[in-house]
């Protein structure tokens, strides 16, 4: 009943770790290049779509930089590691990039939990981190004040304050709001802020419940919300849930004055919902319909690199992430940590999102790139920007016509 496998284990233990460690990275050349390391979620179900999109943006930026001769007369080398959606893998990936590959800066990032674990693990190294993802304020509270931490994606409350400001600007002003949110960290943080903001400004919350992402049926919830008869139905969900919610809202003939969600400009939105998806508004960071010259210019480059693809905002965000870091290296004239941080602090870069500078944010962050978001609405099958007024490409349709009258 017992085995004698210790010798075998010994051999494999050593061999296993040697293999795991030396295969990747062992063949890297020395100081010929400037290395930048990115950690992205490439293989976890709900995360990987954003991860892939970021990779596209990064590779696009990389190609552009190296075609232009690199920086400081060296080629830039981009090392992309998959965090597989697991914190311990994410920690390992970040450590590997910093301690073995000795990258000049750590970029990328997506999940808040993984970011939190990663930053805790690597903060003793005080690396230069220019982070796209992680919108949880938990991360801001902990790492926002750090000198070495730069953050691009708006924090949770930016999205929710955008919603508040948008709703306050609608006339006639809606009164009753129903809020549904997925029960993960994404939905929950969003909900906490929006409820706080809306209550402060006198809105009436008539429904406020979580649901499980990936539910097979939303009709019970929608039936309940329909009963509450809100003016605006606001929900926070992933793509699949949003598809199902809209289809079923139509089926049970639920007619709020406005359907409002988060990040509805995912690639399959139109093909999944068709006409049903019209008139839905959503808060977003960026959409291709933006008319600023940087966006138009960037889209041209994107279409050249990935013909026939509609980008999500993660692609320009990652592109901006990479460009600003390389730009800072160029201005710093070296990859020295302190010089690079000072250069990054002085960033002023015209991105598809507008001018990027690093400012203070409300809850302690000192290097925040983007804080204002936009509200989009699907109108006759295309996404239009309806808020803020200075970026608007179309006028908000409000109230939304009944399902019967469309």
């Amino acid at each position: 009943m017992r085995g004698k496998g210790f010798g075998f284990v010994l051999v494999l233990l050593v061999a296993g770790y040697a293999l795991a460690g030396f295969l990747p990275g062992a063949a890297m050349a020395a100081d010929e290049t400037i290395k930048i390391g990115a950690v992205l979620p490439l293989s976890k179900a709900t995360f990987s779509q954003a991860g892939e999109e970021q990779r596209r943006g990064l590779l696009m930026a990389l190609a552009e930089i190296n075609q232009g001769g690199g920086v400081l007369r060296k080629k830039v080398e981009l090392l992309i590691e998959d965090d597989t959606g697991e914190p311990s893998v994410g920690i390992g990936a970040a450590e590997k990039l910093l301690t073995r590959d000795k990258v000049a800066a750590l970029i990328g990032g997506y999940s808040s939990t993984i970011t939190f674990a990663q930053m805790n693990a690597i903060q003793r190294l005080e690396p230069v981190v220019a982070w796209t993802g992680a919108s949880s304020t938990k991360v801001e509270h902990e790492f926002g004040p750090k000198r070495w931490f730069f953050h691009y994606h708006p924090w949770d409350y930016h999205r929710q304050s955008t919603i508040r400001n948008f709703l306050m600007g609608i006339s006639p002003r809606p009164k009753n709001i129903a809020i549904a949110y997925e029960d993960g960290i994404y939905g929950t943080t969003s909900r906490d802020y929006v409820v706080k903001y809306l209550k402060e400004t006198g809105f009436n919350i008539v429904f406020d419940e979580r649901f499980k992402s990936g539910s097979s049926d939303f009709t019970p919830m929608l039936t309940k919300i329909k009963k509450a008869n809100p003016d605006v139905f606001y929900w926070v969900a992933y793509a699949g849930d949003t598809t199902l919610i809209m289809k079923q809202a139509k089926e049970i003939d639920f007619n709020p004055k406005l359907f409002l969600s988060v990040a509805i400009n995912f690639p399959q939105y139109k093909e999944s919902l068709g006409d049903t998806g019209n008139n839905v508004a959503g808060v977003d960071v960026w959409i291709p319909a933006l008319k600023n010259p940087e966006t138009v210019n960037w889209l041209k480059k994107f279409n050249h690199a990935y013909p026939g693809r509609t980008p999500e905002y993660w692609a320009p965000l990652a592109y901006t992430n990479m460009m600003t870091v390389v730009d800072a290296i160029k201005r710093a004239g070296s990859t020295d940590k302190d010089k690079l941080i000072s250069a990054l602090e002085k960033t002023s870069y015209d991105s598809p999102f507008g001018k990027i500078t690093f400012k203070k944010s409300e809850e302690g962050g000192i290097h925040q790139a983007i804080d204002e978001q936009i509200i989009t609405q699907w109108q006759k099958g295309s996404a239009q920007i309806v808020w803020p007024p200075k970026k608007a490409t179309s006028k908000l349709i409000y109230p939304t016509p009944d399902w019967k009258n469309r």
Partner: protein
Amino acid sequence: MDWPSFFQSIANGVLIAGLYASVTLGLTLVLGVMGIVNFAHGELVMLGAYSTFWLFTMLGIDPLLSIAITAPLLFLVGIFVYRFTIRPILKDPPLNQLLLTLGLSIFLQNLAMILWKTDSRSVITSYSGMSLHLGMVHVGATRLITFAISVALTAVLIVFLHKMRLGKAMRAVSENNTGSWLVGINVQKTYMLAFGVACALAGVSGSLVSTIMYTYPMVGFKLSLKAFCILILGGLGNISGALLGSLVLGLTESFVGTYVPEGSGWAEGISFFLIIVVLIIKPTGLAGTRRE
């Protein structure tokens, strides 16, 4: 009492039960005939859903019509899976069968992820989003069709098992292996066909999933966890019990979702609580006996 939403809740529960029943049917058939709980059944549903999606996107075939392609396709997949993985372990202890089918499930899920990424895909047809207004109740057309198909499938399956020669052979095999050989049934072949039919059923429910829900690599697994619950509620391996169990689960979810505070969050977990409670009260499942 707010009657419109009460009746709407009943309708919601009944309609989603249709989807659940279609997923459970094949699982029940395999359990009934071969005594195997197939953990990979959900993944076969998922394959059916993807096949429907691609047939629609690339060839424009209506999801409901594509059942005619998806079901035979999945039947063949089933025969293949049976031949190379299930047959060698038919006589193994149940735990090996569990591990093998669980392995298959993980394999297929990740294969789908590699092939088609994790995007959620959905089809729109001329009738999707259409709904009938019956008195106080709104009934989605696709969901009604799904329900009708599931009930029809159950009926067809019952008739098949009681009237058709092959169906009777499946029942015979499920009741007595030796007895079946002795009346001239090729038990091996019957197993293979039963597994194939179960997979074809998974294909049908895959088509339904892609119309009324959406398709992503994990969709089958989530549904199959619910199907386990239904299996246990409805009596293990009992076909009409599967429909009944689906109704119980569908209605419970619907009423909890509509009438319990924070119900939307609890509703998806009900199947897990039911599994635990039912198995603890009666380890052989509610309405029936367990096969050894």
